[in-house]
């Protein structure tokens, strides 16, 4: 044994102690940050899931669009797998980190006497059994992880609609969402309504994902994982099966250019009876109100109609959201602002001040015209 711990009185232990404390302190900071983060995310979930006990028709939206508060079957399945993964990986992490920290603390040495040849520790070149152990053990762990996750993939990734699903075609546009309900024959935008049984029974929804321009990604974490919306590839699907009513938020998760950050998604899960009422409303043509005929006239003679559709009028553009039942939505600009008179006026005056980079230009209307158009739009219930 060439290795002999230095027995010089003061310096060695103090520096050993110092470095150990530094290591431990820093690791504690790092780990506590990480773990408290996860803990808070999860406690958020716990307090939310207490409302689950109050029944599936209460609002299930969590304080964040977090994957830890799943309100839909696929999201729940993903979370189940995630806990297993966190368990395995976390245990490995703690063990290996402990090995590193232990080795550092146990074998740290005072600096300054490193040139003393007699201090060189024994040279260990390797050990076949030990190395074999840490080759085989990880293979076994990986195998288990693989089997569990592979089953999850095949369960969650559905290529055909489950029995009795509502089918909706989602078309990603820069930078808003079109929702097409072919069964019911209408198109809406930015707010997806889907049903849950009046008794809380789960009703599956099957989304067909298409893109009008570049790649987007549909992500509402509380309801499902994300799936990309790829142009010229119309075979992407996403399956939702909510178990709790509520208004869930998410957003486009694939960079798609200028206003990507403001391409938000709202999904409203509502009891089937309310959903049916909403569908009936959406199927009607636009409200006609002679009191706002002037506003409608302004709308119809400006470029608005090139991009927007209002069913029953000359406006039949498809580059921008359908406005037939504009007032039934709670947001404007795909979630960039709430649908309130103040923001609506600002939006029509100059959308770039609310959603920079979006494709709608300032329409250069006079204040009077803006008032007229807004009054008209506000009748489109």
């Amino acid at each position, binding site marked *: 044994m060439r290795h002999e711990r230095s027995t010089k009185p003061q310096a060695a232990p103090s520096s050993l102690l110092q470095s150990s404390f530094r290591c431990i302190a820093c690791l504690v900071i790092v780990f506590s940050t990480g773990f408290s983060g996860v803990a808070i995310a999860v406690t958020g979930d716990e307090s939310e899931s207490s409302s689950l006990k109050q029944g599936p028709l209460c609002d299930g939206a969590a304080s964040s669009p977090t994957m830890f508060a799943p309100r839909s079957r696929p999201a729940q399945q993903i979370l189940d797998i995630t806990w297993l993964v966190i368990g395995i990986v976390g245990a490995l992490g703690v063990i290996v*980190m402990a090995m590193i920290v232990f080795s550092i603390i146990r074998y740290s040495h005072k600096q300054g006497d490193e040139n003393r040849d007699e201090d060189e*520790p024994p040279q260990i070149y390797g050990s076949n059994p030990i190395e074999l152990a840490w080759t085989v053990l990880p293979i076994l762990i990986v195998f288990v992880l693989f089997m569990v996750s592979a089953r999850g993939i*095949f369960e969650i990734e559905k290529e055909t609609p489950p029995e009795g699903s509502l089918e909706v075609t989602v078309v990603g546009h820069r930078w808003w969402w079109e929702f097409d309900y072919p069964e019911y024959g209408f198109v809406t935008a930015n707010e997806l309504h889907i049903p849950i049984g009046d008794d809380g029974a789960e009703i599956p929804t099957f989304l067909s994902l298409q893109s009008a321009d570049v790649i987007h990604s549909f992500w509402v974490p509380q309801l499902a994982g994300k799936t990309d919306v790829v142009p010229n590839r119309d075979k992407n699907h996403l399956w939702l099966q909510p178990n709790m009513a509520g208004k869930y938020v998410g957003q486009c998760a694939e960079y798609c250019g200028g206003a990507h950050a403001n391409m938000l998604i709202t999904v409203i899960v509502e009891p089937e009876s309310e959903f049916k009422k909403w569908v009936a409303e959406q199927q009607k043509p636009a409200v006609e109100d002679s009191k706002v005929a002037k506003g409608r006239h302004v709308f119809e003679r400006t470029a608005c109609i090139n991009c927007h559709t209002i069913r029953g009028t000359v406006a039949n553009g498809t580059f921008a959201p359908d406005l037939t039942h504009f007032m039934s939505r709670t947001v404007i600009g795909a979630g960039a602002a709430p649908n309130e008179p103040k923001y609506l006026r600002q939006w029509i005056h100059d959308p770039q001040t609310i959603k920079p980079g979006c494709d709608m230009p300032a329409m250069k209307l006079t204040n009077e015209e803006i008032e007229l158009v807004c009054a008209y739009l506000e009748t489109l219930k």
Partner: protein
Amino acid sequence: MSTMDQKNQGLQSHAPGATFATRLHEWIATSDHKKLGVMYVTAGLIFFLIGGFEASMMRWQLSWPGLNVVGPEEFNRLFTMHGTTMVFLVGMPILLGVANYFVPLMIGARDLAFPRLNAFGFWLFLFGGLLLYYSYFGAQGLYGMGSSPDVGWFAYAPLTEKTFSRGHSTDYWILGIGISGFGSIATGINLIVTILCRRCPGMSLMKMPLFVWLMFIDAILIMIAMPPLTAAQVMLLFDRWLGAQFFDTQDGGSAVLWQNLFWFFGHPEVYILILPAFAYVSEIIPVFSRKVIFGYPLMVAATIAIGFISLGVWVHHMFALGLSPMVNAIFMGSTMLIAVPTGMKMFNWIATLYGGRILLHTPMLFSLGFLTQFLLGGLTGVMLAVVPFDWQVSDSYFVVGHFHYVLFGGLVFSIFAAIYYWLPKVSGRMLDEKIGKWHFWLLFIGFNLTFGPMHVSGMLGMPRRIYTYQADRGWELWNLLSSIGVLFQIAAILFFTYNVLNSLFRGKKAGDDPWDAWTLEWATTSPPPEYNFKEIPVVHSRRPLWDEKHPEDPDWKYE
């Protein structure tokens, strides 16, 4: 062997009193692997400061919801340029530079096999980088958005098509990266030939330092991975200017094709970047543990395994793309598999620490920082391989946190370790230990504070590449913490810059072998003479200097 006139060689090889023009000419016209190595690393560090500035601006903008420090256009340019810079203009040149400098020294050679090709590679890289940055003056971006590239560093089609990216900024991205890519391929081939043909007598492949093994596999990966990127870029250029339709989805092209081609380059690229980190710590950890590396043959085998498997995992970047469950499952398997050889390396490093006499000098601190942070980055990598989990966090801040733990916590920390370890050989002067420790601890705290919380905000639903976010999403705290961490990192980088400049002019003389190390580069002077070794050394083991220092107990008895 360190005579005075050898001391006058190397970096200071010009005649004393030479004019500025002569010195400049000497550097520009050089084909000396050491000068080129120094230029590579210097250029890489300058680009590192630029890329760091871009990142700091982004963190400022994201520190609170609804800020308007930079608008969406500028933000999109910032993250595109940050990613492109850090991968192609920081990671690549620094790893090639360090390999350039030390591979010949470690194998007892006088230069790389093709010195002029080497110089050619460097200048391609540099001008590719400058061309990319010239876009700030010369280009136009996505519709209505000026100057530099703004399509993200992986430039997904069809956003890069003429329809959406109308100006020239994407062309600058293609040409800048393409040109520097040719330089990387040239240097990769050069390294392979050098390692195969220029080893000193006695140095069989299995007697090479692990550094050389890792750079060998790295160079092979460069040679395999870069051409698909270059090809894809040429195809994109055809699309944009010659009316081809490879990726033009409005004309029957395929967005998936670009992702396959890009990630077929992109994932090996991640290993191209991380293998050098393994290379540095595989040299530094043994020296500062005063022990031989544990399980050398397994380390070599693991390196080769990583090289192979890394070519078959690229689809894990595309799990959310809607490919079939079978494809997803297969690539999940291969991705998890790569954790096995990586784990072997981790365990062997720990086994090297175990029972050693650990000296916590700055290079070792950074190596240990690498070890802990790469462990976390590796484990979140295993989590991301699990496809269902990936469906939630792919393209979210969780991924951003993950790959910064690998590439910043791993690669950049190991680069700092390498600089503290090898700069004394390059300049002949030591870096200051005390400032080095300030540098380490500030960076360690700042790094973890910035990138740790990103895992949380990602799991809370925050996607990457957004320039702002709504106040009601519960992401404020995590983003604020991330941004505060940047302040620590900036302070750390200031300490580092001061330390390097101070050392170059006023640093303590290093001597030939300041760390009492074992590989051949420490057998020559600091800085090494132009010809590296007066006589080509002859080696008998993996640690020739150990044999010399311990003639009674040489390594070759055990290998």
